[in-house]
């Protein structure tokens, strides 16, 4: 067995998530090579073949160009699996590789099973086992599902060159919106999810946050619906937090939200759906209507 891992590099840095690919590879077994469009100043520490293309030439994001580099290396390495992180880089590139080679792709793999690969579905509520029908396969692995492994060592670097022609033109990055509150400093965060029902109910959640001496957090749908501002958002595209107490009110627990708060010391979830994925990581799941339970808890705390 042989895997070709595709590392990630952004804003001049090798991304730490790259090491999760090694975590996957150590479970998958066999030989490992990596392809990185990056820089020789930031090499991943592992003892194997590293195909390195210069990001200064091929860009940090240019799927047309990166696709051709990856296809070239696949042709040379003949791997059984080509593995990406399921990220804005990976889910953008992986289907292009699979379609070009007409091979099966399994997205957002959370585990390797005897038959195939376990993946998430139905907003993280359910799982599927998916078996590729082709000998070679493209995989994207869920961020955080496999441990970050630093194999150590010095890679055997093979400089990789290719075609730079592309229809796309990447013009740069826009920084994250950092104004407003810094949730990372809060000891207590009480978050509102879609289950709070409507914008008018947000003050009820904010009142509990105040009663516990904490800050108001929010899940993505609540921010998208403009019930609260983006600086309250917890999750992959918001802030990553680890307070002493995290209270999730009407938050279903999409993986992007869990990734931003699962390291909290103690998690209480309030949800009327006993099967909501938030229950997977909560220390306490209170099965109740948010708008009945939360005001009652706030009243008892401030009595």
């Amino acid at each position, binding site marked *: 067995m042989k895997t070709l891992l595709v590392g990630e590099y952004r804003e001049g840095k090798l991304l730490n998530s790259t090491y999760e690919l090694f975590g996957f590879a150590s479970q998958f077994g066999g030989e490992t090579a990596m392809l990185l469009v990056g820089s020789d100043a930031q090499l991943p520490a592992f003892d194997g073949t590293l195909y390195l293309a210069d990001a200064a030439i091929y860009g940090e994001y240019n799927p047309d160009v990166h696709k051709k580099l990856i296809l070239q290396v696949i042709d040379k390495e003949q791997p059984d699996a080509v593995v990406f992180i399921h990220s804005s880089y990976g889910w953008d590139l992986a289907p292009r590789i699979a*379609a070009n080679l007409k091979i099966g792709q399994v997205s957002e793999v959370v585990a390797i099973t005897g038959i*195939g690969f376990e993946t998430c579905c139905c907003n993280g509520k359910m799982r599927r*086992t998916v078996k590729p029908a*082709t000998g070679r396969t493209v995989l994207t692995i869920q961020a955080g599902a496999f441990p970050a492994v630093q194999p150590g060592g010095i890679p055997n670097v093979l400089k990789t060159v290719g075609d730079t022609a592309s229809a796309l033109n990447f013009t740069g990055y826009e920084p994250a919106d950092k104004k407003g509150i810094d949730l990372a400093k809060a000891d207590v965060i009480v978050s509102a999810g879609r289950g709070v029902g409507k914008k008018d109910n947000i003050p009820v959640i904010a009142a509990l946050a105040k009663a516990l001496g904490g800050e108001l957090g929010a899940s993505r749908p609540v921010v*998208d619906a403009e019930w609260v501002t983006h600086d309250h958002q917890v999750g992959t595209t918001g802030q990553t937090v680890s307070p002493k107490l995290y209270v999730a009110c009407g938050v279903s627990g999409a993986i992007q939200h869990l990734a931003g708060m699962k390291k909290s010391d103690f*998690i*209480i979830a309030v949800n009327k759906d006993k099967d909501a994925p938030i229950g997977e*990581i909560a*220390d*306490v799941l209170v099965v109740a209507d948010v708008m009945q339970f939360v005001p009652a808890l706030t009243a008892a705390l401030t009595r």
Partner: protein
Amino acid sequence: MKLLVCIKQVPDMESRFKPNSAGTWYSDSDLAWRMNEYDEYAVEQAVRLREQLGDSSELTVLSIGPDRVVESIKKSLAMGCDRGVHIQDPAIHEKDPWQVAGIIAAYAKEQGFGLIFTGMQSQDRGSAQVGVTVAELLQYACATTLVGFAFDNGVVTAKRELEGGIKGVVKLPIPALVTCQLGLNVPRYPTLPNIMKAKKKEITPIAVADLLKEAPLVQTTSFHPPTKKGAGIVLEGDVNGLVEKVIGIIKEKTAVLR
């Protein structure tokens, strides 16, 4: 310019999902259906572009599935799409992303669409493959995960959402396909007059057999709930009792209450 938006109908994600008799997908009984949330943003963005371009443009909405998906097509028409295409397939859930993309590409190939919009993924299968694969099959330029979109002079300026909230800006020429992330815009609610107007808009049925040329590349062997780790405790009962228990737990397990 001809525009296309591809939508999927999915169950409400608050539903209880039970495996079907084959054990490979959910049973579709007792489910409430709605438009895939990501696709609502795609429809809204496509309608805004249709309004920007005016009557020199035409916007088609496409969905694959059994008869019930016509409801989602009608909603898109009421939001402002001009015409609908219903690719009839009662067993679309058995097709893999490669086949679904193949069906869409087979339809779109002869149509000369300048821009195609899709959601970045579906809420139920969530593979994030179909849009990009359609672009590859049609050899269109493609950018995924859009939280910003502008179109001027044949060039799309796309803002892609990256991890940590930063955005990547990319320009792509038409023909192009973009996949839309949540929060790209604020999808409109269809108004009653527009719902009435939409009733007169044409929905073309096409049999899936006319477009399906590909065999699957992956196979789902099982659909099941996650293994319960059972680490946490579950509290149920009347609200006052729950409040008392939760305060007790906060006092015992955390140092946040003095």
